[in-house]
């Protein structure tokens, strides 16, 4: 089978970000970038499906500037076979991501599309579902367990939903988005990082895809979130209880 996996380049999720004073975006000076943690989980899952004995070619796809090749190389070092980078350096939203991925799917014809449920920069959680609609494929989002059944014709997916875990079975091809508990991604080893440098990475200018890439949303401005006023340290439990009872009156 063929598995298509997404790998978005995002700002390091553990770095504190700052809004630019002019409200045009965030300060990117000195920022590190990483593969979106949810995409990393999706890549890992593709590898595990193969390691469980299903023959699979794993193609990883990213959208972004030339630098986004770094995150695709990370996915290749983890074990993906080849990469496609759609070069697009302008503002885009999830509708554009879905249209680009649809085009790539039409060319690659994967049996399974694995994505991260959301990117930790824009926190939208939309593109996977939108892609499934555009392709007319079933979706199984927020996956915490994926099992191929029926000789690889279907996937049984456990989904993390409010109040518990839901299991559905979808016919392939399908779009499955990864949640946190699906797996714990491996670290690429040094030999594999070296090997990844030689794996094919194809750059595709977005304009060559022949699709409408006009976003359906317009970014107006960015602001800082409201800050909490500084609190106090209390010396002991008795003081804490007193404050909660008599000052904030919440217990």
């Amino acid at each position: 089978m063929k598995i298509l996996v997404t790998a978005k380049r995002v700002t390091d999720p553990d770095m504190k970000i700052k809004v630019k004073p002019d409200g045009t975006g965030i300060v990117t000076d000195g920022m590190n970038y990483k593969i979106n943690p949810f995409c990393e989980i999706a890549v890992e899952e593709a590898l595990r499906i193969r390691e469980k004995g299903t023959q699979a070619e794993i193609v990883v796809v990213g959208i972004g500037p030339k630098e986004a090749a770094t995150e695709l190389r990370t996915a290749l070092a983890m074990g993906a076979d080849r990469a496609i980078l759609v070069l697009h350096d302008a503002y885009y939203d999830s509708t554009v991501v879905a249209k680009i991925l649809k085009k790539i799917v039409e060319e690659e014809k994967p049996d399974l599309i694995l994505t991260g449920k959301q990117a930790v920069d824009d926190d939208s959680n939309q593109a996977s579902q939108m892609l499934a609609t555009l392709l007319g494929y079933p979706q199984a989002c927020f996956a915490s367990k994926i099992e191929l059944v029926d000789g690889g014709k279907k996937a049984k997916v456990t989904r993390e939903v409010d109040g518990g875990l839901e299991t559905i079975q979808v016919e392939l091809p399908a779009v499955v988005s990864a949640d946190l508990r699906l797996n714990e991604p491996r670290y690429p080893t040094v030999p594999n990082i070296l090997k990844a440098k030689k794996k094919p990475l194809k750059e595709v200018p977005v304009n060559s895809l022949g699709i409408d890439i006009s976003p359906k949303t317009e970014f107006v401005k960015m602001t800082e979130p409201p800050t909490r006023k500084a609190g106090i340290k209390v010396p002991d439990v008795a003081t804490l209880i007193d404050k909660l009872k008599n000052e904030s009156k919440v217990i």
Partner: protein
Amino acid sequence: MAKVLVIAEHSKGQIKKATLSSLTAASKIGAFSIVVAGKDIKGVADAYAKYGAEKVFYVDGDLFKNYIAENYAEAIAQLIKAQNFEYVFGSATAFTKDLIPRIAAKFDAGMASEVLAIEVNGNDVLFARPMWAGNAIAHIKIKSPVKFATIRATEFDHAKEIGASSPVEAFVANVDSSKAKVEYIEFAETKSERPELTEARVVVSGGRGAKGPEGFKLIEDLADILNAAVGASRAAVDSGWVPNDLQVGQTGKIVAPELYIACGISGAIQHLAGMKGSKVIVAINKDEEAPIFQVADYGLVADMFKALPEIISSIKASK
């Protein structure tokens, strides 16, 4: 005035409070209607008819007994077209987060996720939404004729019952089930006697510092005497000490209770994103440098294994 449709959620025949926040958000834009889908769902539609909607539509039948994104999306898309809705909202819960983008793509439409505020200036509508775990707020416009959004329940008050009832109408959707590619298998419910995490007045949360299920026993004991919900940081969930759906944070639940007590939680950016909106925050942590203290109204530098039993007996004694 623009016509708004709110996709309502329900559970075990009951309405969901999170949906009531979406009704309030919808009322900022214009007159709103509500749609519910399910099997034998008229009772829920009637319950939602008390909140001032123009109309409450219900989509009923075996096809909608369990949530299947494809069927729900198709039915609701037909309703949106039939009634010319311009805005479609739902609360930012797992159900609607899964469903609304699936519908939006049928309209080649833009969408705002986890909306915190809506600013209306004539025909211009600006949606404020969190990015980077809530460390930046983007203000965006949606340019497509139909506009979609999920609403963060903690940021809008619950709509109130108005005394009159909205007309309740069945909507018959034409959904072809013969080509169904999805089979519903089961729902494994996390059973709990405690209040729901996103609706509780008080939340007691534990993190890595709880060290294991025994530590969580203390957290649960405190939660029980405060009639509180139990929450957790990612570390605690990843370690398997508590079920997944108790995770508070950027990619878990967003909570804003009157009182949030963080026990043994360091306060990673991702966790803070899920609880910063709480009215009063208490942090109990051994490490006085822990970032959680930066957002806490009251910080207690202490070992939770010592502090929690003291707190519990002190509250018990005063009751």
